[in-house]
């Protein structure tokens, strides 16, 4: 209910105001994956790389270090190596592809990838009830992480 209101208000705002800051959020099942990734921002609000770094590090949110090493975060203990190092990842991928990988890596790699879909409702069985309909990250958190990944150049 509140979600729908939020959505409607957002959509109206986007129509009446020319500023992108009020654009509505793209719902997880409405994200469009093309050959070059996800072209449009999920929120219309520019990602904040500083907030993105926090989300990336946090064990409760991205927990990206569980599986990826990242020299930019050498102050953090224990970087995993289940996935590749993310050093210089912005040299390898453009923003739309980074957004696609974070939102739902299964669309980009294979169904079998171990990397969770952070903005996806395609989840495993026996989902904890309180997580029904919830994505791991919010749309804005994904945009923030993508903005942070954009800073990882070599």
């Amino acid at each position, binding site marked *: 209910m509140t979600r729908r209101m939020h959505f409607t208000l957002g959509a109206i705002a986007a129509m009446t105001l020319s500023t992108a800051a009020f654009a509505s959020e793209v719902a997880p099942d409405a994200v469009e994956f093309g050959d070059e990734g996800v072209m449009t921002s999920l929120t219309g609000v520019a990602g904040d790389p500083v907030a993105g770094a926090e989300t990336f590090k946090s*064990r409760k949110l991205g927990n990206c270090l569980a599986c990826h090493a990242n020299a930019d975060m050498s102050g953090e203990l*224990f970087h*995993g190596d289940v996935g590749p190092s993310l*050093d210089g990842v912005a040299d390898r991928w453009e923003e739309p592809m980074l957004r696609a990988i974070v939102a739902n890596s299964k669309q980009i790699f294979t169904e079998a990838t*171990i990397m*969770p879909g952070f903005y996806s409702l395609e989840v*495993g069985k026996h989902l*904890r009830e309180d*997580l029904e309909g919830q994505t791991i990250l919010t749309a804005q958190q994904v945009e923030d992480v993508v903005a942070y990944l954009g800073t990882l150049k070599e």
Partner: protein
Amino acid sequence: MKRLLVAGVVLAASLAGSGPIWADPVDDTLEIDGVPIVTRTAAPEGHPFDELYSGWLFREKETRDLSRDSFENPGMIAVEDGEAMWNTVEGTAGKSCASCHGDAAESMKGVGASFPKWDADSGRPINVELQINKCRTEQMGAEALPFNKGGQQELTAYIKHQSLGMPVKLDLTEGEMQSWWERGKDVYYTRTGQLNLACASCHEVAMGKMIRADHLSQGQVNGFPTYRLKSGLTSLHQRFRGCIRDTRAVQPDAFSDDLMALETYVTWRGTGLSVETPSVRQ
């Protein structure tokens, strides 16, 4: 290519000072109080791996050393508690385990290496914990022990410890063991929870990799109950539930059909490894 990536990670990690990183199980051998322990062995037919590794090979040196020596192993206190329970009279029949089974060093030798077994009475596989409850309720006139309570883990550790060094081997031809094995295999490969991960995602596909500070093993069960340095004695179903919880899924009940099937299947995945109970883990 893969090797290159790994090399890159090792480099990044050593620059980052984030501690040791291994890509593989270590090259080390284990003897516990003079008993040789098989920590690597050829996999049985139809197994996804060629070689099986005990979780011991994935732990750091200090942790491995604690398993080597019974006096150092903090899990041995639980085994001693289990021994006391073995000899304690309980229930309306006025009996202890020892009244019928005598000296566990003889009567229980090898027994723990071949559970779960088929239990015709209940029509499902039975593990050591449930066998203890069966004897308590049917032979002793005592109450069944609730999951992880009343010394269940200690008595289980004591019984399994009597098979120290003996190879894990299940009889899948008994009763309907084969179909429970199949069901357990389904559970093993089913992705669960918000993180959408199966047992195989971590313990098969990513085996040998680091997930944060944890070196991913094959998820073998030959050391259970294990002694975890951060949380003490840990039963097998507690470990299963913890791994499933970490995928952000509903945790199945201990001894539920899914977890009994999983125990059957995962135990088979360790066929030929030695029983190490109580092995030390981080």
